[in-house]
C-alpha cells in the first residue's frame, strides 16, 4: 500500500515536471507572424540561412490564387521541391522574383534570413501548437 502511494506521488511529480517544462517551452516559443513559412530543405546543408516566406507580406500584394493556382505552389510547407536552379529558371518564387515584378535572386539574404537550424514549418499553425511545439 505504502509502495503504491509513493509510486503515484512520483508519477504526480513527473507530470508536474512535464507540465512545467511544457509551459516554459511554450512561453519561450517564437512569436513570428502567423503563417510565416520557414523552408529549410536544403539551406542548412548548403551553409545558407533557411528561407523565410512571409505570407502576410505577399497577401497584401497578391491573392492566394496567383501562387497556389497559377504558379503551382502546393498547400504544404516543404511540399514543393524548390531550389535555386528552378527559381533562376523562372519557376516557383522565380516567376516574380526576377528583377521585374519583385527583386531578383541576387538579394540572397532578403529571403535567406532565418535562424540557422530552424526546421521547415508553418509558424503559429494549429498543428505546430498542438503536435510539435517548435521554434526557439
Amino acid at each position: 500500500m505504502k509502495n503504491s502511494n509513493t509510486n503515484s506521488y512520483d508519477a504526480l511529480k513527473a507530470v508536474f515536471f512535464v507540465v512545467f517544462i511544457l509551459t516554459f517551452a511554450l512561453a519561450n516559443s517564437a512569436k513570428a507572424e502567423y503563417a510565416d513559412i520557414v523552408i529549410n530543405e536544403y539551406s542548412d546543408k548548403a551553409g545558407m540561412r533557411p528561407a523565410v516566406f512571409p505570407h502576410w507580406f505577399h497577401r497584401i500584394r497578391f491573392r492566394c490564387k496567383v501562387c497556389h493556382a497559377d504558379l503551382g505552389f502546393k498547400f504544404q510547407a516543404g511540399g514543393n521541391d524548390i531550389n535555386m536552379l528552378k527559381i533562376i529558371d523562372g519557376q516557383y518564387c522565380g516567376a516574380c522574383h526576377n528583377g521585374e515584378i519583385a527583386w531578383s535572386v541576387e538579394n540572397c539574404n532578403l529571403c535567406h534570413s532565418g535562424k540557422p537550424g530552424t526546421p521547415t514549418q508553418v509558424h503559429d499553425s494549429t498543428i505546430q501548437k498542438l503536435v510539435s511545439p517548435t521554434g526557439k
Partner: protein
Amino acid sequence: MKSDFYKYLSVTGIMLIMVAAETLAAPSVKSGKLIVEKNCAGCHVAGVMGAPKIGDKADWSKRAEQGVKLLISHSLNGFNNMPAKGGNSALSVTDVVNAVAYLLDVSGVKADLSKIKVKSAKTVAKNKTADAQKSKAGTPATTTKSIKVAKAKKVNKKTNVNKFNRLMKSKSEWNPPPAEDGIHDPDNEGTYALQTPKESFADMASNPFGNHIDWVKALNKNQIEPRFDRLDPNKKPFVLDLNIVREVKGSMPDVVYPHKQHTEWLDCSNCHPAIFIPKKGANQISMASILMGEKCGVCHGKVAFPVSECRRCHSKNKTKK
C-alpha cells in the same frame, strides 16, 4: 533646572523634526535624480525643442511661478513638445513628481520644494489605489483627473480581461519586428531590409487572432489591393456568391460556408476536387480533421483565420423545433 530641561527638550524636538523633514524630503529628490537621468536628461540637458535646461534657474522659476500643480500636470499629461511622462508611460505618478522635485531642486528653485512635498504626498495617497490596480493589471497607473486618462484606464481594463492566461499574447506583443520574432536571424542584414508587419498593418482592419488583421474586411474596404493575376493589376476575380449551410451535431451553431469570400482570394481549382468534392453531402468534415490540417484546415489554422474563431464559421444559430 526645570527651564534647562525644557530647553533641552525643545532643541531635541526641533532636531528631530529637522531630521524627519530631511528623511521625508530626501528620498523624493534622490529617486527623482535617477528618474531624470534615465528619462528626462535626453531633452532637458541640451534643451531640445525648447525644453527647460536642467540648472537654468530663471527658466524653471518662471514655470514654477505658474504653480507646481500645473507643472506636474504638464509633466504627467504632456504639454507642447513635452510628451506625457517624458514618453515613458511605465513611470508612476510618484516617479514623475519626484523627477519634477529633483529638476526644481537642482535648478535652484527652492521656494516650491515644500509645496511639492505636500502635493506629492497627496497624490501618492490618492493614487495608492490606482498603483495597486496598476501592479495587478500590469499597465501604467494614471491618476490625473483628465478625461483622456480616464478613458485610457477603461480601455486598459477591457484589454486585460484575459491577462490571466499567460499563453495569450498582449497587444504590445503582436506583430513584432522580424529581428525579434524568433525565426529570423537578427545577425542577418536582410532581416531589417523589408517592411515590418506593424508598418504594413497600420491602416488595416484588426482582428484578435492570426496576423491580428481581418484580411477579408481589409480587402472589402479596399485597404489592400492584392492582384488576382501575376502581371495584370486590373484582372478581377470570378466571384461566386453561394452559401453552403452545413448542419452540425450538438448545440454548436450550423456552419455557413460562403463561396464569396473564398473566391475573392482563390481559384475553384484550389479546393475542388482535391480537397472538397463539389457535391453536397459528399464531404465528411470534422473538427478533428480540420485541427490536423485537412479539409478547411488546409488553410484555416495555417494562413487563413485560425480555428479559435469558432463563430466565424459556426455562424447560423439553430432554429428551435
